[in-house]
């Protein structure tokens, strides 16, 4: 009887999956904070592919990338109260968590383990279950960001990629490139500033993503 009561209460308290799917990420996070697994699942479905793509680009191995994404999402679920909408979109927050986890994982690995990339039959996705307009906006954004990165001088795009996707510290990059640390930092800053100009205001590029 008690189990039945709980099931009924749970059903009446929780919006249906259809109702949840139309809520904005920020509204869903309020439900996640209250412990609603169904709301968390919608957040997961919206951002897991992007999180896995980032983790795989950084780690180069499916198993490690999946561990990173799992740790990131579980940490998000268990600390939903820490999301602050003033600091950006839920997507940026999710990807920031996954990025930090991937950096931790990369820095735990030995140099010998680094760079073992691909060969696991992972293919770039060709279809998406998301709304067409959202998907189109994301593809446009992806192209703009790739273009902005490619238009940078090599020495600037290289330090940005080694830092952001390679998980290397500025000191490691300086050592690897045999370049002073101050120069590496300057290239990072100049590269990011140029990308910012090329992208306009990135917040406008993907505010809904």
């Amino acid at each position: 009887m008690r189990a039945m009561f709980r099931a009924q209460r749970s059903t009446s308290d929780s919006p249906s999956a259809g109702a949840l799917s139309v809520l904005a990420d920020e509204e869903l996070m309020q439900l996640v904070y209250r412990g609603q697994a169904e709301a968390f699942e919608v957040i997961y479905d919206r951002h897991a592919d992007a999180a896995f793509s980032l983790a795989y680009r950084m780690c180069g191995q499916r198993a490690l990338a999946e561990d990173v994404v799992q740790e990131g999402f579980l940490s998000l679920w268990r600390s939903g109260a820490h999301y602050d909408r003033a600091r950006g979109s839920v997507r940026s927050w999710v990807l920031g968590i996954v990025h930090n986890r991937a950096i931790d994982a990369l820095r735990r690995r030995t140099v010998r383990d680094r760079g073992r990339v691909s060969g696991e039959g992972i293919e770039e996705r060709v279809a998406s279950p998301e709304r067409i307009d959202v998907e189109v906006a994301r593809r446009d954004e992806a192209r703009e960001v790739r273009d902005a990165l490619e238009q940078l001088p090599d020495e600037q795009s290289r330090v940005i990629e080694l830092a952001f996707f390679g998980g290397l510290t500025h000191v490691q990059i300086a050592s690897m490139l045999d370049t002073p640390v101050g120069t590496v930092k300057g290239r990072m800053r100049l590269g990011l500033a140029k990308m910012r100009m090329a992208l306009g205001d990135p917040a406008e590029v993907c505010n809904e993503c």
Partner: protein
Amino acid sequence: MSVDEPGPHVDADGCGGNAAPYVLGALTEQESETFRRHVESCAVCREEVAALKLVADALPAAVPQLHASPELKRRVMSSVREDARLREAREVHEARETRRSARESARTARAESPLGRLLDGLRPRWQAGLAMGGVAAAAVAVAVVALGSSSGRAGTRVIDAQVLVAHARATLSVSGGHAELSVADMPQPGAGRVYEVWRERSGTPQPTDALFSVTTGGNATVSVPGGVSGVHEVLVTSEPQGGSRVPTRSPVIVARLS
């Protein structure tokens, strides 16, 4: 100052010089923490970080987009649902405890008032009038009080499990008949294998549907399905993918409840 303009704070050797490596994640943990504290008190660096972070936040869009596997979702959502179930059980338990405390407080207050003593004196006769009989009613009352006390004493019990793997650790948290097993520094169960949780009653391990692997850090948290009422031990063995109906290997974790 904008990031588009040169100035003392954007010199690579000045305080602004760390804004770019900070937003790219290229500082060490200690350097990051030091810079984070600096940013709290430096408006120029705060503005620099905010501007550059918008670009860093956009960088993940540049990577080829892939599909996360259904197996990954199953792993994540399995942990999430177990967490949610434990949280709900804990809330039900706490609500019951709150109601019990409120009843006891009211009973104490009533017992201390002259009117309360009069009502309590009348209560056995009223209960007898409900065709239960005075003795039976007293027995029921005692049983209810005893159950409440037992539940109140239980709270959350944390049991250090015996782990037969070097350097690994495991604890079993028991609350209101529900139990959650947390492991740390455990090795992967091996290719094509998975860890399986068992409940041992009367000397017989009973399989559960709790199958898990561990993160690269060796961590995992899993609920013990069906709770631990009447269970003497919670065990973990390494089993072939999909789990087994009877253990095929010796336990690597043993948590004794009694």
